[in-house]
């Protein structure tokens, strides 16, 4: 579906085409000015420079017991300058300097506040939670917004490795999953919320990764029982989102979603919730024509499948039977799905092409 199609079908008047192009061209224009890979280069540079800046702060302030206040002050100043540079600065260097300063400021600020509030990850999470909305609204830079949310998730992951880890893990999974589903349902403007959605999507996959490996043996027996419910929970969540995205498409669509929910739930119940999640993400990505999410899901699927091989709680024989039967069901599904005549108005080419 293109702007031309929208005009032909009467959704847009000819006089509105220029406005529509202007509204959608912002990303295209910035892509023409700076390809995605160049922005990635900026981000990597900011990481390197930020790492050296942290070294600068550490050597300048020192690690003495009374240095917390200095860390908080320097961190706050760096963060403020970084966010200001990202807001008002123009050009590659100011963007990169802004990101590097923000990165170093975040680390120094959190480090100092942890020292002041008490030496645990809980206080670090509180600081990240307070800074997150401030930085998110003040900074208009999508990378900075992504970092603001990602810092919260990083602190959450660290708490997952403490005594009460299981609670943090389960609440983190639920929260990241909900934010991701809401973001992908389109309930809020994508331009503003995309950074939070992407950060939460990655956090969701990381939490599933932690749950599928290390945690299972750490929190026996409670976790073992809970673990098998994660897959069906994830499959049902994705199915609800798909029902929303596909509403009004009739029985065939509902049937397809039900097949996913059953198959994904079964695979998750077998001990591979990550595989179920990636299958769901692939379908959602196709429903929203988000190709990069689709590829992320495919890469995640391969990684989770490899991890499933090393998952010790399920015997290789059981895993093998689950995989063979799921594979056969999918092959039968492929064999019986009739190739349709492609609509000339379809949104984007599928991942396969």
């Amino acid at each position, binding site marked *: 579906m293109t702007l031309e199609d929208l005009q032909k079908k009467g959704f847009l008047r000819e006089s509105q085409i220029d406005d529509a192009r202007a*509204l959608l061209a912002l990303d295209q224009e910035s892509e023409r000015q700076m390809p995605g890979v160049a922005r990635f280069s900026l981000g990597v540079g900011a990481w390197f420079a930020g790492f*050296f800046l942290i070294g600068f702060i550490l050597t300048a302030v020192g690690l003495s017991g009374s240095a917390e206040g200095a860390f908080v002050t320097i961190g706050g100043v760096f963060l403020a300058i970084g966010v200001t540079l990202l807001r008002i600065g123009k050009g590659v260097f100011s963007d990169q300097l802004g990101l590097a300063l923000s990165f170093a400021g975040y680390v120094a600020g959190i480090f100092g506040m942890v020292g002041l509030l008490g030496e645990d990850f809980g206080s670090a999470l509180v600081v990240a939670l307070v800074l997150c909305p401030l930085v998110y609204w003040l900074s208009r830079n999508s990378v900075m917004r992504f970092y603001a949310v990602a810092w919260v998730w990083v602190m959450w992951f660290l708490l997952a490795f403490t005594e009460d880890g299981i609670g943090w893990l389960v609440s983190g999974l639920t929260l990241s999953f909900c934010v991701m589903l809401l973001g992908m349902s389109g309930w809020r403007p994508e331009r503003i919320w995309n950074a939070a959605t992407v950060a939460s999507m990655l956090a969701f996959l990381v939490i599933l990764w932690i749950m599928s490996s290390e945690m299972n043996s750490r929190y026996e027996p409670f976790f073992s029982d809970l673990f098998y419910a994660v897959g069906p929970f994830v499959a049902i969540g994705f199915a609800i989102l798909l029902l929303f995205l596909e509403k*009004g498409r009739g029985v065939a669509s509902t049937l397809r979603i039900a097949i996913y929910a059953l198959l994904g739930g079964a695979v998750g119940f077998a001990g591979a919730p990550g595989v179920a999640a990636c299958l769901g993400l692939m379908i959602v990505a196709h429903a929203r024509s988000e190709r990069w999410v689709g590829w992320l899901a495919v890469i995640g699927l391969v990684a989770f499948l490899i991890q499933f091989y090393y998952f010790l709680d399920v015997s290789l024989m059981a895993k093998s039977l689950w995989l063979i039967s799921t594979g056969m069901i999918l092959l039968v599904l*492929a064999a019986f799905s009739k190739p349709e005549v492609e609509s000339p108005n379809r949104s984007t080419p599928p991942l396969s092409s």
Partner: protein
Amino acid sequence: MEDSAKKGEGTSRFLTRADLERLIRGGLVSETKGSELLSAYRESIGWARWIRFWAGSLGAVFFLAGVIFFFAQNWKEMSPLLRFLILEVAVIASVVGALCFRAHEAIKQWCLVAASVFTGVLIAVYGQVYQTGADAFEVFALWSLLMLAWVVVAKFAPLWMFWLVVAETAAVLYAGQVLVPSGALSWPLVHTVMGIMTVAFLILWELLSRAKPFAWLQGDWIRVMLVTATLYFLSVMPWMTIFDFAYQSDEWGSAQSVGVLAWLIGIVVGTWYYVRGTRSVLSMSLCVLCATVILVCLLGRWMLDELWDNAGGWLIASLLALACFGGATALIVKLARMEPVRSSGAGEVES
């Protein structure tokens, strides 16, 4: 003229659901028409083709993974004879299936993928049953040799990549089990040799994928994977030189010269080729980024070697990193705008 071209470019771009949501939120499409628009969008999504492709591909992957898991279990209740029988029948059935479904390209290709995987499992089970004591590289080398015929017949790009992974694994294992212990090669030099081997495959792919009979080999993902693998292998020697030199050894040997020179040639030729030859912004950027990372590591090491406890040293290192990556970003943007000398291959999908 230019304006009308731009206009056409803007109106013919495929829209995502996020684009439509933006149009509705922007007030260009009314709320009532908005739900109609989203409904029309939903109808435009081709699900049947997508399900056919992915259910088929994932079904095959899950099924083959299940077979691998099954034989990895080394189930004691199953006699060795029965194991061999099952696997040999599976190999023969896959090849017969490929012959029977010659007209259905996708089924034929997946049958040959299955035959290739079953061959590997058969070799592994052979080692399991007879405890041959063979080195791991022999298993992978034999596997890559035996599956080669099916790889050639299948004309299926993912199977070629799979074959390359198996063959390169055999080479790395051979180096690890024979060449390095005997002192014939050092690990960094092994990586350089692997880089040269991968670049040879990359050159071969660049030449072949342009030819009509090899159109099935096209796909920018192959180029990106081969470029990434090449840069990884070639970067190990400069990396080791930066961080090990003067700690492990003070002498600059001929192996280091060869490795660093190979890396330098790879970066320069790769950047030039993907700008002026076959245009690929991503591949060119990977070369530039690889060079920048190595350069920043070199400068950081040089700067902080003496000044690691001095705040000024860290600050200068930070500014150098900013300058290097800022320069790299500006270079990528500039090179991305340059016109290639000749048009790109058919496999090129980037703009």
